């Protein structure tokens, strides 16, 4: 429902700017679903969005707003890229990616740990700190790719990773790797964790009612720390999968904003791990379509940000229309 409103409103707005909205949507749709390679591209873009969306979902379940997925994604990607080059590869090809992936996850967890430590020792504002880390990590990873770890040549990238750590692709010469299944597996594990384990139950209690949690002796600081670590780890895994499966090195501006797409996708999915997949699928399709949109029409690919923005607003304010009728009702009550 929100999606339809967002599409319509977004269309009207771009029409006011003199673009052809129907042409834009047709191009988006064609790019995402128009051909076999479109579908592949959609699922390839689904993967990173799914990881960041799950990172946001799990933090929201514990009642914290981790807006730092973008930075953790980049940090994880950098960790995997460096691990793929500089540490000796002991495992052979199909499973060689495991070690760099673990390094990427560990880096993501490390960033989460810094935020958690600041929260734990100084009681700082998590949202603000994680937000600021995005900018620091973007700059630091850019510096690493341009400076000390730059590969051969003039491009701002790290050296290419060892072929033995490439993630097996699901389709030859595409961007779709088995990272896709890893993201789905993470979603299933999270769903199980949240609804079938007592630790997950504690997460949900802290997230939905901190007071109840305190009365029942659940330490909310402990849960918040865990949530930040898990969230950071998942976002880091997203970055690692991107490097190991798609890019095979770290290039600056690796992420076109996957961290933020994740926020939107998680909201669209209703904040549950499994349904997050729906949100990630839609945003993956939009990302895949936007490439086609930018190439085939005169409409910039930023068009999808407009839709995303309107979509987010409509999802979290379900009573935009109801809110106005609420007012009328109140006036009736006054009479």
């Amino acid at each position, binding site marked *: 429902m929100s999606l339809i409103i967002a599409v319509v409103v977004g269309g009207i707005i771009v029409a006011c700017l003199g673009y052809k909205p129907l042409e834009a949507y047709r191009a988006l749709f064609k790019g995402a679903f128009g051909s076999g390679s479109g579908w592949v591209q959609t699922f390839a873009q689904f993967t990173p969005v799914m990881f960041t969306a799950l990172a946001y979902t799990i933090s929201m379940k514990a009642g914290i707003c981790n807006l730092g997925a973008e930075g953790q994604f980049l940090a994880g990607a950098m960790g995997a890229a460096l691990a793929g080059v500089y540490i000796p590869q002991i495992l052979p090809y199909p499973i060689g990616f495991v070690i760099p992936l673990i390094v990427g996850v560990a880096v993501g967890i490390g960033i989460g740990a810094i935020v958690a430590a600041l929260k734990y020792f100084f009681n700082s504002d998590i*949202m603000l700190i994680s937000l600021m880390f995005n900018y*620091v990590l973007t700059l630091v990873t850019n510096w690493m790719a341009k400076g000390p770890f730059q590969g051969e040549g003039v491009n701002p990238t790290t050296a290419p990773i060892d072929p033995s750590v490439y993630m097996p692709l699901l389709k030859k010469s595409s961007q779709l790797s088995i990272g896709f299944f890893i993201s789905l597996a993470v979603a299933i594990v999270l769903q199980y964790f949240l609804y079938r384990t007592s630790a997950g139950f504690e997460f949900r209690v802290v997230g939905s009612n901190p007071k109840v949690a305190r009365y029942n002796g659940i330490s909310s600081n402990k849960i918040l720390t865990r949530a930040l670590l898990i969230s950071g780890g998942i976002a880091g895994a997203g970055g690692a999968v991107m490097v190991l499966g798609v890019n095979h090195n770290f290039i600056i501006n690796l992420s076109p904003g996957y961290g933020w797409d994740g926020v939107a996708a998680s909201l669209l999915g209703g904040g549950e791990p499994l349904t997050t997949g729906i949100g990630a699928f839609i945003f993956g399709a939009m990302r895949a379509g936007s490439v086609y949109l930018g190439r085939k029409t005169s409409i910039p690919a930023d068009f999808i*940000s407009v839709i995303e*923005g309107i979509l987010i607003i409509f999802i979290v304010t379900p009573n935009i229309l109801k809110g106005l009728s609420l007012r009328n009702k109140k006036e009736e009550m006054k009479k």
Partner: protein
Amino acid sequence: MSIMSQFISTGVFAATFRMMTTVGFAALATLMATKSGIMHMGQEGLMLLCALAGVAGEYFSGSVLIGILLAIVVGIGFNLLYALFVTTCRGDHVVVGVGINFFASGITALMIMAFWKKAGQSDTVEGIAKLSIPLFKKIPVLDAVLGSQNVLFYILILAVVVLWILIYKTPFGLQMRVAGELPLAVACTGKDVNKIRYSCMAIGGILFALAGANISLGQTKAFSKGMISGRGFVALAMCMLGRNHPVYAFFACMMYGYTEALQLRLQGQGASNELLQCIPYVFAIVVIAISGSLRNPAALGKPYPEDAN
């Protein structure tokens, strides 16, 4: 010149004031929202929209005043829209802000393409001229520091004073602070809580417009895609660091401005630009971290009435 002398050169202080003007206005705008109980997260988007409106207004009319006026109209309009979503429509304050940021980053990119037929950057405009005050010319140090400021810097100082009076010395200010702490109490006096919040957001819209106008018309004289790049969130951080008080927030922004000026000065002296650009953000993280739990208004981020649905 030795390294130490660069830390206190007049050039750095001049840049400090130039850098802090944008963030200062945005911090004040955030403060207006926070005080009345709205958790504002759309600084980035609001500033982007206003920055573009300023450039477009001047580009198409030829007058910088029209540009600033258009920015103000856009600022008030979108800030009120934000208020509508979070008060009357009861949306989540943080997420609506994220949505506005998304929307703004997309729509401004589309508008550059629509207006100037090129991607990424607008044509340049005259912008706001530097304001030289004859009196300062006679005092050497003051001239070096303040001679390169534009009129908005002085408006910022004026705004700090006006807001301090408005918030702490007027009946409206009292209502607004109570609307942020205990909205029910305001409602009991027969005032409409949401109306107060809307008024605060309208004032905040003007301040965002000046922040945006300063960055596009005052500094770069053009609009480029994503030109805010985190300054809005820095403003939020500085507003919190300043304990939601206009005067303290002003000084917090001055500290931020200093770090920004310093990193600009140190660029091109061997160290990596990327690492230097980290300095202001690291500064923000450190000060937010060590200042610990910052007290925000009790009703921040909650719709009023709380239970209606």
